[in-house]
């Protein structure tokens, strides 16, 4: 299907199913139950999950295929965001021009950065990209305040020119839309105690993510992708055979920069606000973590990694002391206090600690990331099935 082989079609279908059914999958616990704390099926987080999925997919095209570790990808995300918000301020609140322009600008900027940084490889390349990203951050935070809004960032306001839209009444907040469909439109579906939220913005982002994912599969399976893998395994040997690898690596860099720009544009489309912190080096580091956690060089890994980290950031960070007290309320007083004291450092503001520990566990025991974990489980099942003499391959999950 779509020029993919059977296995890749399977992966695409699985991702499509996960994306479209996310409101159900992410809200497994009934409203009001103690476990409802872990529900992630609200629009903002679902949007972030797929948008950072796009960011990680794009990063994986560079890092997973060529092995070039960029520590500055957040800069492209930021440039895309600023481009998008300016389109919203100057042209229209429709998200389509904003997203297109964000991809273009991020592409141009990554061309410039890639052109310079790709003169070096290995750690020197990483440092160069990191330097560019920090430079962009500093520029956006203070020097370019008239363009970027500095620390306060940019938001669309009622008195922006917006050539294509009609003027708004004083003090009205402009809302991002897709030909009239507002991003926060949607409806709630209640089934018994379960409430599932369906949100227009999320589904737009999810469809864009599926297209981005499909393109990345095509890139992975193309001769171009093969060339990038060759760069990763031995660039010197490629050079000795008389092949100039620079155009390939630069193309990969620009493509992944455009993915980052797309993610930036979508972030603005879903939540019309840009701040300079989006370009800070920790944001660049985060996408590296996402990719490695999920499984660098695999198709679905980065999406899983992005989902995992964003889930931790938004859910675990919100567990506070009073929530813990509710959980352990059934225990005798002394034990309750001990349990709270034990668990508290790992939740709430300590979510970084939990994430760090999990990251270490994954890197040590599953060097191939979450995808390797999935594969091992699949293998376990398959091994068992083989001994049972079942040959029904259709029932085993695809990798």
């Amino acid at each position, binding site marked *: 299907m779509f020029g993919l082989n059977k296995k890749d079609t399977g992966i695409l279908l699985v991702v499509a199913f996960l994306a479209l059914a996310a409101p159900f999958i992410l809200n497994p616990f009934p409203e009001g139950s103690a476990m409802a704390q872990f529900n992630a099926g609200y629009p903002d987080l679902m949007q972030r999950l797929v948008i950072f999925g796009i960011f990680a997919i794009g990063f994986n095209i560079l890092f997973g295929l060529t092995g070039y570790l960029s520590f500055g990808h957040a800069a492209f995300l930021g440039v895309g965001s600023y481009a998008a918000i300016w389109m919203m301020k100057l042209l229209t609140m429709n998200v389509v021009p904003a997203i297109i322009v964000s991809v273009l600008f991020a592409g141009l900027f990554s061309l410039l950065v890639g052109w310079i940084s790709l003169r070096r490889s290995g750690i020197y390349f990483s440092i160069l990209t990191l330097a560019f990203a920090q430079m962009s951050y500093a520029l956006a935070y203070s020097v370019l305040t008239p363009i970027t809004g500095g620390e306060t960032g940019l938001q669309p306001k009622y008195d922006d020119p917006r050539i294509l839209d009609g003027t708004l009444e004083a003090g009205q907040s402009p809302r991002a839309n897709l030909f009239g469909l507002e991003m926060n439109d949607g409806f709630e579906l209640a089934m018994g105690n379960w409430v599932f939220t369906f949100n227009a913005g999320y589904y737009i982002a999810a469809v864009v993510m599926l297209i981005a994912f499909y393109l990345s599969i095509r890139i992975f399976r193309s001769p171009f992708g093969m060339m990038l893998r060759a760069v990763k395994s031995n660039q010197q040997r490629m050079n000795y055979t008389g092949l100039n690898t620079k155009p390939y690596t630069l193309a990969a860099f620009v493509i992944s920069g455009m993915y980052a720009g797309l993610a930036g544009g979508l972030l603005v489309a879903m939540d019309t606000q840009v701040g300079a912190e989006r370009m800070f080096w920790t944001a660049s580091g985060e996408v590296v973590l996402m990719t490695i956690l999920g499984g660098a060089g695999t198709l679905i890994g980065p999406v899983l990694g992005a989902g995992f980290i964003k889930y931790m950031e938004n859910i675990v*960070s919100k567990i506070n002391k009073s929530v813990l007290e509710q959980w352990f309320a059934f225990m005798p007083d002394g034990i309750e206090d001990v349990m709270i004291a034990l668990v508290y450092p790992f939740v709430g503001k300590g979510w970084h600690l939990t994430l760090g520990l999990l990251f270490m566990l994954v890197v040590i025991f599953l060097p191939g990331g979450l995808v390797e974990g999935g594969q091992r489980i699949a293998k376990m099942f398959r091994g068992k099935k083989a001994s049972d003499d079942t040959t029904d391959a259709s029932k085993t999950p695809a990798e």
Partner: protein
Amino acid sequence: MSFSNPTRRGLIKTGAVASAGLALPTYLRADGHAGFTNAPQGSTVTLGFNVPQSGPYADEGADELRAYELAVEHLNGGGDGGLMNTFSSDALKGNGILGKKVEYVTGDTQTKSDAARASAKSMIEKDGAVMVTGGSSSGVAVAVQALCQEAGVIFMAGLTHSNDTTGKDKRANGFRHFFNSYMSGAALAPVLAANYGTDRKAYHLTADYNWGYTTEEAVRSSTEAMGWETVAAVKTPLTQTDFSAYIAPVLQSGADVLVLNHYGGNMVNSLTNAVQFGLRDKLVNDKNFEIVVPLYSRLMAKGAGANVKGIFGSTNWHWSLQDEGSKAFVKSFGTKYGFPPSQAAHTCYVQALLYADAVERAGSFNPCAVVEALEDFEFDGMGNGKTLYRGADHQCFKDVLVVKGKENPTSEFDLLEIVEVTPVEQVTYDPDHPQMAGGSLGSCNPGA
């Protein structure tokens, strides 16, 4: 039943099941629309406390959270009632808000506008918060305020000092109790003139971001109106930790006052550097060289240690105030946590109470009703004397404290002494003052 060969009975059965399935959601959701976002259901109401728990302002954030927890306790009738006893409005009964028990969710803003919005959004979309409050920087306050306006919930700003929050970025659903840069400048200038004379040359070091700009502008225009001259204003990167390179040129410039428009760790470092360079022992233009810090906080004074002695600055509130409200607050905070509250804790506690009171007086959680109740609301007994929540820009107008680093501190909390309580008239400005220009409140948004 087979689909290729439908029977009459099968068709009726399927139809009944299908229509029941379709009707179920609508039936269950019928009670969900009360005309505004997150109308509280059942016997509880959820508030969202969005404070920095990590990053540069984590100390302030922790203190804010303590204050909110205290406020919730008092609203639900626990503890000694704190400021509810001294508050001029007696709508609050200690039985929650409108009889609903107050529950809360917390989030970490990380002092980043993106993270703050994500956290606020999850409070609104997932936890059903009807009001969001907190924040320890103006960038975050502006970002979250705009979000709350869009979503249709009330935003009660925490510690945010930039003019923009209730100036060019003001919103109808957002309210600020804390004072701002303009007020700092207006309160400080007369005290500085009285102590240091009107013939001074000032040198500004300004943190290179929005808050720094508005503070520099405010202090500059107020002191220049007193007859001071501004020799130079130099911007310093926010991430700077060593300010020696910026301090050295100060002496060559012929300036005799250094104004440090820095906050938090920045201020601690720049002040320490300035004192280490011996600036304060110098005589320039036959006058003692002086240093001024427009925005002070106890946590900063603690960081800078002995270097703050004798240095002027302004603050929103200080625990050593002797009015009934301040004493009551310091007492209940101290009883619960064992140390006196910071100004961040005070403003957050007061904001939570003001919101609850406005809901009680309005008789509804509807944001538009709350906005109406808060606009032009005059109150007293919250520690700052008579205070007005001005309807034109949703900024509180109250006395501003000019403080000075104490020469002989008696404890690690007793670092600042109050020099003057600048009366509210002196720090009041027109809503369309040039430093606040641009922006419009718009109309309140109740959301769904």
